[in-house]
């Protein structure tokens, strides 16, 4: 038997496990969403873009579980979520309205190896495209990029209803600069003096405000199912390869 080449060391990724989280702080993120800062002593840290399954148990034993993106490539011990309330939701109204500091939650994670960005893995530019609360995992990627010395250019195209609905508005504004381009598209109401009329994201705007396909960016798209499917199809029309487009859909109850 011949000698096998030594396999390169692959960065080990933490195995998903169940963790108990304590709510440290909850505060309004937008008129319909809350930011939850959780203390999770056993949390191993996570790649930017990954998610958790969050499980609630009612006093009668009934359980409901939902997936939520993690809002930062959080250090060990700390998880930040930003949760939009779905009007007919079973879990999100409780998380947004009722949760108080000291409350306990069960989290399963970190989860997901597909919709993640890891610093230093590639020198290709990165185009992020988010709709509504779909910006949460993209914000995590932009924050991880901003915190490290990864030289790849980043750009975020963020489609949002009104200025008040922007998630992580201050943090995104602070990240914007030479290495991170931020483009906002307002679908219902734009700020005073905004150069574009409010309206849905179109293929033309997408083409004008994103890194062109010739530069072979890695593209991450997150939003509602309809948003993701429209954007992914336009990206392919614009010459991006399907294998360069990473998508994540949110929704459900």
């Amino acid at each position, binding site marked *: 038997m011949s000698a096998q080449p030594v396999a390169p060391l692959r960065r080990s990724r933490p195995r998903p496990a169940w963790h108990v989280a304590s709510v440290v702080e909850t505060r309004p993120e937008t008129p319909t969403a809350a930011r939850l800062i959780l203390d999770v002593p056993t949390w191993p840290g996570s790649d930017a873009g990954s998610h958790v399954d969050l499980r609630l148990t009612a006093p009668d034993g009934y359980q409901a579980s939902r997936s939520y993106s993690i809002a930062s490539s959080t250090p060990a011990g700390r998880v930040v979520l930003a949760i939009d309330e779905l009007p007919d939701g079973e879990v999100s109204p409780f998380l947004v309205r009722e949760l108080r500091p000291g409350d306990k939650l069960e989290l399963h994670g970190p989860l997901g190896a597909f919709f993640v960005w890891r610093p230093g893995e590639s020198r290709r530019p990165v185009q992020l495209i988010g709709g509504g609360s779909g910006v949460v995992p993209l914000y995590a990627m932009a924050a991880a990029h901003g915190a490290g010395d990864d030289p790849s250019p980043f750009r975020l195209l963020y489609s949002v209803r009104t200025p008040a609905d922007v998630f992580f508005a201050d943090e995104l504004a602070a990240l914007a600069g030479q290495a991170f381009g931020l483009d906002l598209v307002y679908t219902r109401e734009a700020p005073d003096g905004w150069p574009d009329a409010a309206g849905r994201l179109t293929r033309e705007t997408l083409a004008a405000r994103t890194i062109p396909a010739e530069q072979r960016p890695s593209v991450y798209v997150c939003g509602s199912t309809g948003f993701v499917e429209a954007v992914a199809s336009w990206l392919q029309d614009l010459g991006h390869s399907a294998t360069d487009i990473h*998508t994540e859909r949110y929704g459900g109850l």
Partner: protein
Amino acid sequence: MTHHLDGNVLAGALSEVFTTDVTAARARCGGCGRMSPIAEAMVYTDAPGLVARCAGCDQVLATVVDAGDRLILSLAGLSAIELRR
């Protein structure tokens, strides 16, 4: 069109079965032969459990039912999964 999510949402349930995260793994549809990451499957969550369908031909690739003390997994619609070591 019925509402669907995608295969990213399977990560939690499948982590109970596989030793690594398989949502980024490519799998072959047993119906049309399309190879694509499991994360790109269409996942319907309104059935009892999760139903993953091929984004190319709509074939049911996998179903996952959480029955409390048991997990019932079918991968009958997949003909292969590429697991990276």
